[in-house]
C-alpha cells in the first residue's frame, strides 16, 4: 500500500489526548534547583551595582548568580547564531527592559521568586532608541562594536564595525531601477509598517541542564537541538560529544524556540552549582525573550500605461531589538523576496537589520515574509486602484511564472503562483455579484499572494535502522512541535520500505543518538529531512538486499527482513543501518547585487482572499469569509497539511487584527494573555482552505514545506478588503477597530482626537 498521501492521525495522538505526552515543561530531576530571573527595569544603561545580599539571605535560597559569576566559568559568555552579542547574564550594560541580570536558585520555585524581589540593581541610564528608522542614525548605539559569529560567511564583513546600529545591510540590484522609474508612466510610492508581536507558545520557554561526569545533558523546549549542542560546546570549549541535548514534544514553537534561548543560562548555572537546574518562564517573561520584527517598508513602483510593473524599489527596516538572534538572516533571506511574486525587470532591495533597545526579534512563522507581503500586496492593490484596473487583473498581468527569472536571478521552478492565485480567485467568486452592504455596515473583499524562498544552504542527516525482527526505527533531529514531522517521516520511510507508517518508530531529537539537523525552521524540515529520510531508507533497503546476498539468498527475491537476518546470523540478531545526509546545491548571492542563479532549493506560495464587513460607526471589522490556498507540492499527509494552512492563517489573523506589544519607556505594558489578545474559538471566520495540485520535483515524493505559507496573504487581503468596503486604507498593523475608525473619521473630515 502507498504510504505517502495517506491521511493518518499523528503517531503521538494517544499520548496527547490523554495528557501523557512528554514536554520539557514537566521535567523534574532529583536534586534539581529552580532558577528565577532578575531582569533589567531600564531599556539601556550601565550597571552600577547589583545587591543580592537580602536575596541570598532568604531561607531556602541556594545561591544567587550574576554575570560576574558566569564570567568566571566562561570568560567570553556571549552567544547567538549570527552574532556573539548576547551575554548569558548582563555584563556592564543592559540593552532592553527584561534582560536577565541575575538568577536566584532554590529548590522551591516560590522561594526563588520571592528572593528575586529582594534583589536590587542600580543603573546609569543611557538614552534609548526604539524605532527602527530612528536607529539608522548613530546617535544612540546599542552595541559599541559588532561581533559576527562567523557561522554565516556573508556576515563576516561586519566584524568589528562600530558606530552604527546596522547589524546587517543587504542589497539586491537587478536591471536599472532609476532609469526604469524615470521612463515609467506612473510612479507610486508608499510606506507600510508592522508591529512588534510574539510567538507566545503555550509551553513557555523552559530548559533544564543536568551536569554529569565530564558531560552535560540539556533537556529543552527548543527547535534546533544540534545548534544548541554546538553552541554550548563552543561556550565551554568542549567537543560536541560532551553535550547531550534532548527535546521531547514541544508545546508550540512557531520560530521562537530557535537557536539558544535559556540553554546557555541553565548550562552555566548547573556547571557552577553542580546540580540540575531548571528555568521555566512565565507567560509574562516570554515578552522579554524573543519577538517578531516590527518593520518599516518603503516601497515604490514604476508602472507602464499597459499596467505592467517595470520597476520596484524596496527599502526594508527590520527592528531587531537589543540582540541580533537570527534577525540578520531574516533581513537577508527574506529581504531578497521583498519585491513579491511579480515579473519585474528592474528591482532594487535594501534590507537593514537594526539594533534597538527592545526585546530581541527573530523568526516567527514566515521568517519575515509576512511583513513583506503585508507591504507589497497592500501597495500592489493601491496601484491597481489608482490605475483603475481590477486588482485581480492587475496581478494576473504581472505574476511571475515558472521559467522566468526572479529578482534574485534564480529562475523560478515548481512555484505554483498562478495555480494558487487562480484557486483563491475562483473560490472567492470574484466575477460574481457581491453584496456591498448597507449604510453603516459596508462589505468589501480583497486578495493577496506571497512568495517565499526556503533558507539555504542547510543540512539534514537521517538514520533508518532495521532490527533483526524487521521492525524499523527512524532517527531524526527534527523537533515535532505539532506540525506532524514524526508522522511524515514514518510515511516516507514506510513508502520506501513497503511497510505501514504506523509500524515505523520515530526517535526524535536526542543528540546522543539523532544525527545533525540544522533546525526545525522556515518550513525546511519536510524537504531537507524528508529527503534525507527517504535516502536513508533507500540506503537501508540496499544494505538489506546486500545482506540477503551475503546470506546466500537468491538475488531479486523479496524475503521478509526477519528471515534475512536469521539466515545471515543464525538467530534474531544484527541491524541494518541506513544513513544519508541531504544538503541542496546553492550559490551565494553576489555581495553587491544579491544575484545568484541558485538562491534557494524551493519556493513556497500562499494566497488569501477575504470578505469583510466593516461597521463604519465603530470601526469593527468582521471577517465574513477567509479563503486560503498554498502550494506545498504533493502533501505527504493531506489532513495535517490542511490543518497547517488554517493554523497559520488564524495565527496571522491575530497578528493582523489584535496582537501588538505596547511599549512605554521600553517596558511592555500588555505582557499577559489578558491584555495581549490572541485568537480564540469565537474569532474564527468561516474558512475554505486548499492545497493546490502541484509537485516539487526535488522534494521527497514531490513534497515541500507548508508550515508558514498560510500566513502570507492574510494581512494585506484584509486591508485590501477594508479599502474595498470603505475607501480607507490602513498602512500599519494591527488593524484594530480604533485604527479603522480613525481612518474613517479622517476620511470624513471629522478626525478623532489623539487619545
Amino acid at each position, binding site marked *: 500500500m502507498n504510504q505517502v498521501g495517506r491521511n493518518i*492521525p*499523528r503517531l*503521538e*495522538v*494517544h*499520548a*496527547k*489526548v*490523554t*495528557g*501523557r*505526552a512528554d*514536554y520539557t*515543561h*514537566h521535567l*523534574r530531576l532529583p536534586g534539581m534547583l529552580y532558577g528565577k530571573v532578575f531582569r533589567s527595569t531600564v531599556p539601556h544603561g550601565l550597571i552600577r551595582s547589583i545587591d543580592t545580599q537580602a536575596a541570598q539571605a532568604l531561607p531556602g535560597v541556594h545561591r544567587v548568580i550574576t554575570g560576574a559569576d558566569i564570567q568566571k566559568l566562561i570568560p567570553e559568555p556571549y552567544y547567538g547564531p549570527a552574532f556573539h552579542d548576547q551575554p548569558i547574564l548582563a555584563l556592564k550594560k543592559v540593552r532592553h527592559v527584561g534582560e536577565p541580570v541575575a538568577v536566584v536558585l532554590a529548590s522551591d520555585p*516560590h522561594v526563588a521568586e520571592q528572593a528575586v524581589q529582594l534583589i536590587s540593581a542600580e543603573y546609569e541610564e543611557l538614552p534609548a532608541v526604539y524605532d527602527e528608522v530612528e536607529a539608522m542614525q548613530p546617535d544612540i548605539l546599542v552595541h559599541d562594536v559588532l561581533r559576527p559569529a562567523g557561522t554565516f560567511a556573508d556576515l563576516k564583513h561586519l566584524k568589528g564595525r562600530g558606530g552604527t546600529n546596522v547589524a546587517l545591510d543587504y542589497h539586491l540590484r537587478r536591471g536599472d531601477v532609476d532609469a526604469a522609474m524615470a521612463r515609467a508612466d506612473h510612479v507610486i510610492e508608499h510606506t507600510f509598517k508592522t508591529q512588534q508581536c510574539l*510567538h*507566545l*507558545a*503555550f*509551553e*513557555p520557554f523552559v530548559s533544564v541542564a543536568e551536569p554529569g561526569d565530564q558531560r552535560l545533558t540539556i533537556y529543552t523546549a527548543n527547535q534546533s537541538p544540534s545548534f544548541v549542542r554546538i553552541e554550548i560546546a563552543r561556550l565551554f570549549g568542549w567537543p560536541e560529544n560532551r553535550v547531550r541535548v534532548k527535546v521531547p*514534544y*514541544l*508545546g*508550540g*514553537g*512557531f520560530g521562537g524556540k530557535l537557536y539558544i534561548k535559556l540553554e546557555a543560562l541553565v548550562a552555566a548555572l548547573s556547571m557552577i552549582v553542580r546540580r540540575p537546574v531548571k528555568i521555566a518562564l*512565565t*507567560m*509574562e517573561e516570554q515578552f522579554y525573550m524573543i519577538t517578531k520584527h516590527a518593520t518599516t517598508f518603503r516601497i515604490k513602483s514604476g508602472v507602464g500605461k499597459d499596467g505592467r510593473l517595470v520597476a520596484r524599489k524596496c527599502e526594508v527596516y527590520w527592528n531587531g531589538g537589543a540582540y541580533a538572534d537570527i534577525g540578520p538572516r531574516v533581513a537577508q533571506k527574506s529581504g531578497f523576496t521583498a519585491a513579491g511574486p511579480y515579473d519585474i525587470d528592474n528591482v532594487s532591495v535594501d534590507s537593514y537589520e537594526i539594533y534597538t533597545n527592545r526585546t530581541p526579534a527573530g523568526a516567527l512563522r514566515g521568517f519575515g515574509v509576512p511583513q513583506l507581503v503585508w507591504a507589497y500586496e497592500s501597495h500592489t492593490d493601491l496601484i491597481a486602484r489608482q490605475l483603475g484596473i481590477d486588482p485581480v487583473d492587475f496581478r494576473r498581468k504581472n505574476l511571475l511564472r515558472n521559467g522566468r527569472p526572479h529578482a534574485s536571478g534564480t529562475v523560478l521552478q515548481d512555484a505554483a503562483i498562478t495555480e494558487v492565485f487562480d484557486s483563491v480567485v475562483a473560490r472567492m467568486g470574484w466575477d460574481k455579484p457581491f453584496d456591498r452592504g448597507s449604510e453603516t455596515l459596508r462589505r468589501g473583499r480583497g486578495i493577496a499572494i506571497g512568495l517565499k524562498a526556503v533558507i539555504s544552504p542547510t543540512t539534514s542527516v537521517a538514520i533508518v535502522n532495521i532490527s533483526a525482527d524487521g521492525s524499523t526505527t527512524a532517527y531524526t533531529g527534527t523537533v515535532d*512541535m*505539532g*506540525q*506532524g514531522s514524526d508522522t511524515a517521516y514514518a510515511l516516507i520511510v514506510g513508502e520506501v520500505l513497503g511497510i505501514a507508517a504506523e509500524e515505523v518508530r520515530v526517535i526524535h531529537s536526542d543528540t546522543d543518538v539523532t544525527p545533525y539537523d540544522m533546525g526545525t525552521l522556515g518550513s525546511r524540515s519536510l524537504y531537507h529531512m524528508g529527503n534525507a529520510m527517504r535516502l536513508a531508507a533507500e540506503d537501508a533497503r540496499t544494505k538489506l538486499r546486500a545482506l540477503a546476498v551475503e546470506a546466500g539468498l537468491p538475488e531479486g527475491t523479496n524475503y521478509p527482513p526477519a528471515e534475512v537476518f536469521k539466515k545471515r546470523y543464525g538467530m534474531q540478531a544484527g541491524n541494518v543501518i541506513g544513513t544519508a545526509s541531504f544538503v541542496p546545491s546553492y550559490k551565494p548571492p553576489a555581495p553587491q547585487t544579491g544575484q545568484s542563479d541558485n538562491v534557494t532549493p524551493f519556493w513556497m506560495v500562499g494566497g488569501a482572499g477575504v470578505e469583510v464587513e466593516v461597521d463604519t460607526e465603530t470601526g469593527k471589522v468582521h471577517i465574513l469569509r477567509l479563503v486560503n490556498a498554498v502550494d506545498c507540492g504533493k502533501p505527504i499527509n493531506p*489532513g*495535517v497539511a490542511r*490543518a497547517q494552512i*488554517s*493554523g497559520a492563517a*488564524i*495565527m496571522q489573523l491575530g497578528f493582523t487584527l489584535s496582537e501588538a506589544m505596547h511599549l512605554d519607556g521600553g517596558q511592555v505594558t500588555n505582557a*499577559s*494573555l*489578558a491584555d495581549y489578545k*490572541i*485568537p*480564540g*474559538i*469565537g474569532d*474564527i471566520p468561516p*474558512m475554505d482552505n486548499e492545497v493546490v495540485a502541484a509537485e516539487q520535483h526535488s522534494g521527497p515524493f514531490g513534497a515541500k514545506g507548508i508550515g508558514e505559507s498560510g500566513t502570507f496573504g492574510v494581512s494585506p487581503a484584509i486591508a485590501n478588503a477594508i479599502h474595498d468596503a470603505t475607501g480607507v486604507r490602513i498602512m500599519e498593523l494591527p488593524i484594530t477597530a480604533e485604527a479603522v475608525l480613525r481612518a474613517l473619521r479622517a476620511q470624513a473630515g471629522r478626525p478623532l482626537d489623539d487619545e
Partner: protein
Amino acid sequence: MSARTINFTLNGQAVSTAIEPHRNLVELLQRFDLLGARESCGQGLCGCCTVLVDGVAVSGCLYFAVWVDGKSVSTVEHLDADGALSNVQQAFIDCGAFQCGFCTPGFVLMTHQLLKDCPDPSDEDIRDYLAGNLCRCAAYPEIIEAVKRAAKAAT
C-alpha cells in the same frame, strides 16, 4: 508557610496530603505525577490547566490546592481509566483537533463539561463553552468538528 493536611478524592481514589496554602491545584496534581493539567498563562485565561472539581471545570492555576479539601477532583488522566479513550478523546483524534497538544487536555475536559450540560450543542454553545480555552496552534476548526463528532457518538 506551614502545610495543611487535606483529604480529597482524586480520580476516584481517596487521598490525603499536606500542602502549603499558597500552592495551586496544578502543583498539587504534580505531586501525584498527574501532569495533564499545565500552568501556562497563570491567569486562568488559556484553559491549559483545566481540572474538574466536583464535576465543575476550574482553572487549576487560580485554584488553591487547599480548596479541594473534602472535594472530588478529576483530571484528564481519569478519562481512560477503564482502558478506553472517552468519546471526546477519540473524536479529537479522529478530527485532528490539536497540533502541539499542550492545551488539549484542557479542551478535552471542557468538552466533557459542555456535553454534560448540552448533549447536542449548537455552534454558539461550543464557542461559548470553549471561549476560555485557547489554542496557539489554532486547531479551532478541527476542535469544533471534534465536539460535534463526540456529541454524535454519545447519542
